[in-house]
């Protein structure tokens, strides 16, 4: 059973990666610049965007993270392929 993932799956994952990378960069920047208001605004916008993208992903392809970070679909299928390294 070789399940092929649709193209949107990869595009959505890449979008999540892009937003999360910006969040990582801004987190490191804000660690040393706590009073930079513009950066904080950008950080919050990106955080909201990241949540939306992850919600969109989880509605279509199942849970992205575990231990309550993502809702579970029925049946309990977080162990299904593809795993992150199999994507």
């Amino acid at each position, binding site marked *: 059973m070789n399940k092929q993932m649709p193209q949107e799956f990869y595009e959505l994952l890449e979008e999540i*990666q*892009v*937003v999360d*990378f*910006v969040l990582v*960069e*801004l987190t490191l*920047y804000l660690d*040393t*610049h706590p009073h*930079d208001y*513009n*950066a904080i605004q950008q950080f919050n916008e990106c955080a909201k965007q990241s949540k939306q993208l992850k919600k969109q992903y989880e509605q279509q392809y199942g849970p992205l993270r575990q231990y309550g970070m993502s809702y579970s679909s029925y049946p309990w299928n977080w162990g299904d392929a593809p795993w992150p390294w199999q994507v």
Partner: protein
Amino acid sequence: MHTQVKYYHPYISPFDPCPPIRVKSYQTPPNLYLGFQPPNLEQYPPKQALYCGTLWPALFSPYPNPQGRDEYE
């Protein structure tokens, strides 16, 4: 602007057992010269930031392969 790679010529002794490495290089990315990062620096668009490895063009470095080292030829 600072160069991304710098080279130096190590001393080569006549008694070196192995073929000498005449030119050595080391990476010098921009963050070495930036000091404390000023706020509101110009940013890459998010997608390009992911592929460039940094959000700020001022800090970008391609980490080029040093050409000066002759043992690659």
